[in-house]
């Protein structure tokens, strides 16, 4: 009798890896409408996830931009001399949260003021001889959230007359931004979990229909791993297939949004992240989410049918 070389080998042979990929791809069309149903579930949820991600990431970016514009203006006492200006500068510089300190002399301040007033500013030129303004430091903190705390500490310094940072506005802005971010995060996590639940349920139904087949494979001597791998590949392909339409929708939609944002809103500070690379990065994220939930749904569903 002809004897085949049956090697007992724990590592999978390369030809078997190829076989699993071939088998997984074949299952995509073998299962026809089941595939359409699963990929459809992936598509629906990924369109939602993608649109939501685009919105949240942009809102977050806008919030960050606004926060980064927040600065503290430290007005020094009118009486300070050169040496005192230096010491205050050093003291401010030593505060660890501070990221930049820029000195603005009373002459600079006046020049800025005159410039910002345009035509009317000309009358202020009278004051050039007897400048009523203060020398000032303009400060930014590493983390905009530290603004209030740092401002209060600087206010305590002797040489400082006044600290301006639009206290109420900043406080409200930060509170709003934090709330918006948290809500966004919760919504995205909720959405992804809903997606996983929906998709794994759809896939589970399609695999349930194949419970008998899995049993037959086991009776022919297939190990769990051998059965699982094509399902892994199939889930991966389902996820990738399911993310094609969402990516097309997001890329087209975002292209439209970036081109028309100025017409859509009256606020100059609303600026979307540039189409390139953001739209592509988002596409990649959608693809990855699709692939992960496809694989997850598929592998989790097949698991409970393997003990035969």
């Amino acid at each position, binding site marked *: *009798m*002809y*004897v*085949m070389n*049956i*090697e*007992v*080998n724990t590592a*999978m*042979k390369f*030809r*078997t890896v190829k*076989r699993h990929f071939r088998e997984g791809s074949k*299952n995509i069309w*073998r*299962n026809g409408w089941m595939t359409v149903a699963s990929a459809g579930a992936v598509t629906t949820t990924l369109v939602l996830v993608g649109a939501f991600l685009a919105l949240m990431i942009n809102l977050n970016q806008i919030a960050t931009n606004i926060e980064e514009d927040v600065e503290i203006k430290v007005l020094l006492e009118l009486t300070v001399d050169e040496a005192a200006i230096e010491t205050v500068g050093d003291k401010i510089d030593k505060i660890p949260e501070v990221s930049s300190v820029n000195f603005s002399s009373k002459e600079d301040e006046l020049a800025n003021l005159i410039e910002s007033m345009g035509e009317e500013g000309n009358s202020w030129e009278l004051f050039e001889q007897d400048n009523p303004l203060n020398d000032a430091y303009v400060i930014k903190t590493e983390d905009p959230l530290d603004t209030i705390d740092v401002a209060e500490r600087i206010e305590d310094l002797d040489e400082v007359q006044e600290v301006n940072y639009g206290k109420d506005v900043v406080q409200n802005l930060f509170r709003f931004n934090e709330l918006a971010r948290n809500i966004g995060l919760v919504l995205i996590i909720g959405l992804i979990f809903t997606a996983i639940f929906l998709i794994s349920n759809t896939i589970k139904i399609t695999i349930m229909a194949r419970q008998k*087949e899995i049993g*037959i*494979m*086991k*009776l*022919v*001597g*297939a*190990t*769990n791993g*051998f059965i699982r791998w094509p399902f892994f590949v199939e889930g991966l392909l389902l996820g990738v297939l399911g993310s094609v339409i969402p990516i097309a929708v997001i890329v087209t939609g975002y292209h439209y949004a970036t081109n028309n944002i100025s017409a859509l809103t009256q606020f100059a500070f609303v600026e979307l992240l540039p189409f390139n690379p953001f739209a592509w990065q988002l596409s990649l994220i959608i693809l990855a989410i699709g692939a992960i939930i496809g694989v997850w749904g598929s592998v989790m569903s097949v698991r409970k049918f393997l*003990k035969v």
Partner: protein
Amino acid sequence: MIDMQEVYKTYPNGVTALNGIDVKIESGDFVYVVGPSGAGKSTFIKLIFREEKPSKGTILVNNKNLHKMKWKDVPFLRRDIGVVYQDFKLLPKMTIYENVAFALEVIEETPKNIRKRVMEVLDLVGLKNKARFIPDELSGGEQQRVAIARAIVNYPKLLIADEPTGNLDPDTSWEIMRILEDINASGTTVIMATHSKEIVNTIKKRVIAIEGGLIVRDEHRGEYGYEI
């Protein structure tokens, strides 16, 4: 090849299918398992390749102790045993070729050997020209031959068939028997549960009769011994 001692099987629903089976089957034997419906023939067969576990007793197959066998080792036991089911158990979405090839892919045979060997067994069971069909496109007898092809494709030491001719017309049944005899002649042990008096009485082999979960008769070159 097979050694059962004091084997009992009670299903979770309380039905006792086997009531103390003692039997030895040597390598190269051809054995009929006969008996009335519900006697425990299928249960006896399922214990051999671990589709069911015994409630009590020891079973040795190929010198492997099934009682001590871990879940992960079961697939390897099954690779040495070809099984032919009354309901064929073919994979419905795969072609005939793919169904038979599956048993070789499982043992990671090379694609070249797989192609060669699958066509060889399909030729043996007379289905070479239907390799690209799916099971639903075949008659019952043809599907049964596919099941046999899959069971023997990896040269198992043992071939088990549970009523392989149960649903087939007499001509097809005799053809199936011819294939099983050939396989046995090449050295493979064959165990076959059957209801066919004609087959048992014509092709004389060892007969094990089971009734009420017990072996009531075990004869070499035996008769069917029942009136139906």
